[in-house]
């Protein structure tokens, strides 16, 4: 008796399962683009909205090759197995023509076997971990839009070198890196060590447990940093770590010459925080870039019009770019044939809202790498200003980082710095001591 | 007066009590019977822990049937359960206090009741701060009886009060029972029939869930049936 009931139930469950997954394929009228993003995450939300925006704009202009574009976004839930299943659904049930999206490196790793199996053209926005690149060696259908970890590191070095050239008083002989203990943080530190060896400066680092993982107490790391007395302090973590990190640095009286953070996003209302003044960060995009880049302004305005909101992460413009590059290539190829689209993609030359122009080149391992470059930004008077590269700079850098305990006169310090060039020399002397 | 009328109780399909009726006025009443006869079930029914399928239980004319246990206790029934049911990590004094703290009527008389209880069990006075769980079985029994008395009950139910007690203490308990019954109705179940019969006024014999016999203590003491079933003599 029991077995009967069980079988009935099991069959029922299975059949329901099969029915809902086996949504019948529709006639191949529109061009289908499948996207994988973590929808519960800020990056995924910005990304999916921007993709929708891009598709809407394309369709409003009559689509591509006279066909409409259909975007199918599936949540990867930041779970490897769910992401792999989602990829299978896109490729076999929805029969998409192209794959876009992507955020976390770990999830991308779980998708590699599937991507290789289907061999569809993939234009991938996420994944900075170079392990992914190694696994993608020799795959001509893989187009990557995010800088690899080693590229980012090298680029930062270049940036700081240029900053040093411009600002005589700038100093970066000793740096301390506080990094979250996950792959993101410790990968960054590994790269940084190599760079420091080449750049002949001293570096020390220590891992902390990110608030995202249940941490949130950074004082021991900050104390070690203070003892080390670096010129530059960098923390590599998440948006959740941003403000407590600064508060605790203030608490123990740790104010290095430059205070840099590199989270993928910032917490809500971070702009309103009084502590943010002078904090530097690595990012790809800020809303203020609309003042210096036309593409950025177009995107930003369109996004605001559509959603009455501003994207908080660079995944917004990046995912917009993702769709646009693909759409341009299809247009250029005149077909959705794989080989033709790959060829067309190789000739991409897209000025993106991120500021940079995307052109696919060879990277260390893969053939198709095009990316925007990170920018040095700084919070100034509640706004995120780009300070380097010079061509996108929206403001001048405040240097040195205004000490926490002198924040009462914060504004005076900034203005003083902007005007008073001689002050730099005085600081230089002080540093030399 | 506690009155039980035509009570039927069953656990699932198994009927435990059949048409049981009894009354307890201002007296002490014994309830005897072999293990499994339904003594504890009857007590549980009075306390509202088991719900009868039919019958009526009243205290001074007020029905107890629909009440929750805590309400019944507040109405003036106190119980000394078979397994004592003390709070092992709490001290003796705290245990005693729980006896009256939740009964508004008794709470007012806390000090008075405490004196009364100590008069009855002087040994407890020396152990006030000892956790109840660390005491010997006999002392725990005393705490349990004392806790019930703290409630200043109208009816006191004692379920096997002499179990696990040393004879001298048993004597003390039953001596105390005589004291107690002066102002409280007492219902006592007991295996130590001989001792109990000396302390009670009337007795009921419960067998297989039915009242087999009801008589005065004197008559029961002289009854051959009881000698045979319980004393084995």
């Amino acid at each position, binding site marked *: 008796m029991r077995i009967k009931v069980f079988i009935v139930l099991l069959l029922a469950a299975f059949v329901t399962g099969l029915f809902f997954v086996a949504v019948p394929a529709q006639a191949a009228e529109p061009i289908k683009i499948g996207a994988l993003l973590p929808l519960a995450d800020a990056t995924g939300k910005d990304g999916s909205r921007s993709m929708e925006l891009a598709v809407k704009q394309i369709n409003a202009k009559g689509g591509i090759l006279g066909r409409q574009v259909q975007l199918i976004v599936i949540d990867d839930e930041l779970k490897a197995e769910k992401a792999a299943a989602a990829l299978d659904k896109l490729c076999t049930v929805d029969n998409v023509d192209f794959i876009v999206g992507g955020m976390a490196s770990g999830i991308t790793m779980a998708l590699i*076997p599937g991507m290789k199996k289907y061999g569809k053209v993939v234009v991938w926005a996420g994944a900075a971990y170079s392990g992914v690149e190694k696994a993608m060696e020799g795959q001509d259908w893989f187009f990557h839009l995010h800088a690899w970890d080693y590229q980012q590191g090298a680029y930062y070095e270049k940036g700081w070198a240029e900053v040093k050239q411009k600002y005589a008083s700038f100093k970066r002989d000793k740096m301390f890196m506080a990094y979250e203990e996950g792959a993101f943080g410790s990968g960054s530190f590994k790269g940084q060590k190599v760079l420091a060896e080449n750049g002949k400066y001293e570096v020390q680092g220590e891992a902390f447990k990110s608030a995202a993982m249940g941490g949130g107490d950074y004082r021991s790391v900050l104390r070690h940093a203070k003892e080390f007395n670096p010129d530059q302090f960098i923390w590599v973590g998440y948006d959740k770590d941003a403000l407590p990190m600064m508060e605790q640095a203030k608490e123990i009286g740790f104010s290095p010459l430059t205070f840099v953070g590199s989270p993928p996003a910032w917490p809500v209302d971070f702009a309103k925080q009084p502590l943010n003044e002078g904090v530097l960060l690595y990012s790809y995009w800020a809303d203020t870039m609309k003042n210096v880049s036309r593409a950025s302004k177009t995107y930003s305005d369109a996004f605001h019009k559509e959603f009455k909101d501003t994207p908080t992460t660079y995944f917004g413009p990046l995912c917009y770019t993702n769709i646009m590059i693909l759409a341009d290539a299809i247009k250029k190829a005149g077909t959705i044939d794989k080989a033709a689209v790959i060829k067309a993609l190789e000739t991409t030359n897209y000025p993106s809202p991120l500021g940079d122009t995307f052109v696919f080149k060879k990277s260390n391992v893969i053939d198709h790498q095009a990316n925007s470059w990170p920018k040095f930004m700084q919070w100034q008077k509640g706004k995120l200003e780009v300070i380097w590269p010079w061509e996108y700079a929206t403001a001048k850098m405040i240097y040195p980082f205004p000490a926490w305990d002198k924040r009462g006169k914060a504004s005076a310090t900034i203005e003083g710095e902007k005007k008073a060039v001689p002050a730099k020399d005085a600081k230089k002397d002080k540093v030399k001591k | 007066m506690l009155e039980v009328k035509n009570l039927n109780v069953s656990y699932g399909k198994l009927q435990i009590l059949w048409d049981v009726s009894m009354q307890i006025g201002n007296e002490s009443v014994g309830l005897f019977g072999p293990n499994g006869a339904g003594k504890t079930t009857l007590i549980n029914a009075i306390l509202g822990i088991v719900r009868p399928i039919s019958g009526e239980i009243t205290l001074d004319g007020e029905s107890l049937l629909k009440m929750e246990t805590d309400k019944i206790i507040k109405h003036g029934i106190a119980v000394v359960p078979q397994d004592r049911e003390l709070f092992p990590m709490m001290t003796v004094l705290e245990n005693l206090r729980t006896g009256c703290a939740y009964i508004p009527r008794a709470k007012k008389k806390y000090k008075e009741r405490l004196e009364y209880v100590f008069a009855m069990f002087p040994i407890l006075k020396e152990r006030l701060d000892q956790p109840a769980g660390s005491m010997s079985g006999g002392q725990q029994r005393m705490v349990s009886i004392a806790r019930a008395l703290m409630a200043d009950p109208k009816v006191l139910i004692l379920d096997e009060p002499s179990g696990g007690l040393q004879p001298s203490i048993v004597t003390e308990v039953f001596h105390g029972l005589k004291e107690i019954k002066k102002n409280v109705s007492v219902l006592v179940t007991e295996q130590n029939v001989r001792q109990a019969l000396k302390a009670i006024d009337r007795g009921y014999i419960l067998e297989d869930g039915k009242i087999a016999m009801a008589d005065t203590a004197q008559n029961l003491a002289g009854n051959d049936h009881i000698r045979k079933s319980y004393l084995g003599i």
Partner: protein
Amino acid sequence: MKYWKYLICAVLLIVAVSLPKFIGVYPLQMANIILIYMALALSWDMLLRTGQLSFGIAGFFGLGGYATMLTSTYFGFNPLLSLMAAAITAGLVAALVGYSVLRLRALYFAIVTLALGEIFRVIAQNLEITGGTEGMLLKQTMFKGDAASTYWVMLAIGVLTIIISIIFQKTRIHYASTSIRNDEIVAASSGVNIFKYLVIIFAVTSAIQGLVGGAYVQLYGFVEPTATTFSINFVLMPITMALLGGLYTTWGPVIGAVLLSVIAESLKLRIPYGHLLVYGIIMVVGILWFPGGIMGFIKKMFKISNQ
């Protein structure tokens, strides 16, 4: 009547084996996920049948995953061999730690198994050989990711788990674990060597969890200590499935796994934002309506007694 049962099982098995002929890759992938969680839920339940509540599923799952990764990377084991290595490693470690840990009961055992899992994670995260926090990539996943073949391997693991569970239910192990769960003193007085059976069952269930962990690595091709391989998800989801399906049975966790996986996936596709809210409500309502799990509900409905 008896043969009818076997016949049904055989037919089901044939249907399950030939599934790749009829359905696409995506349902197969979903089937893989269901099988992964089902095996974890069932193995957890097998230990629970002795009354021991384990929170260490993720720990042994991750341990198996790392064993697979390390043996195939450093010793070039083929996938199936590396899966065996995963099962053996997890089983051995469980047997070893079981010697001290299985003297604990209830909440204490649960907490200690949880802590053990965390210790495995920290070790994996801090060693060079395991790739540290970045984890490691498998050179080539099992059968080059061929959906049918991987599904068959997962199916084999799932069926193996069900078979072990049935064996546990049909042999003296059932009597040992039930008596231990019901009353350890009675069990010992009847001659049950409680400790021996606990160690055996703990080792076997942990080996299954390790095996599933190994399969996970072979399917998705990487290990990563913090977010994926030792994820608390692999503790909470299987427990949820087993509880909702019905404890102490073979089919309860199976039904739970199928049902919850299907619900989760279909909710995700219908309600992209906030599907977990609905999922949570379903769980709460489920536990309030079916406190004995779905199997308990079925038994009640059909008035099927314990036997």
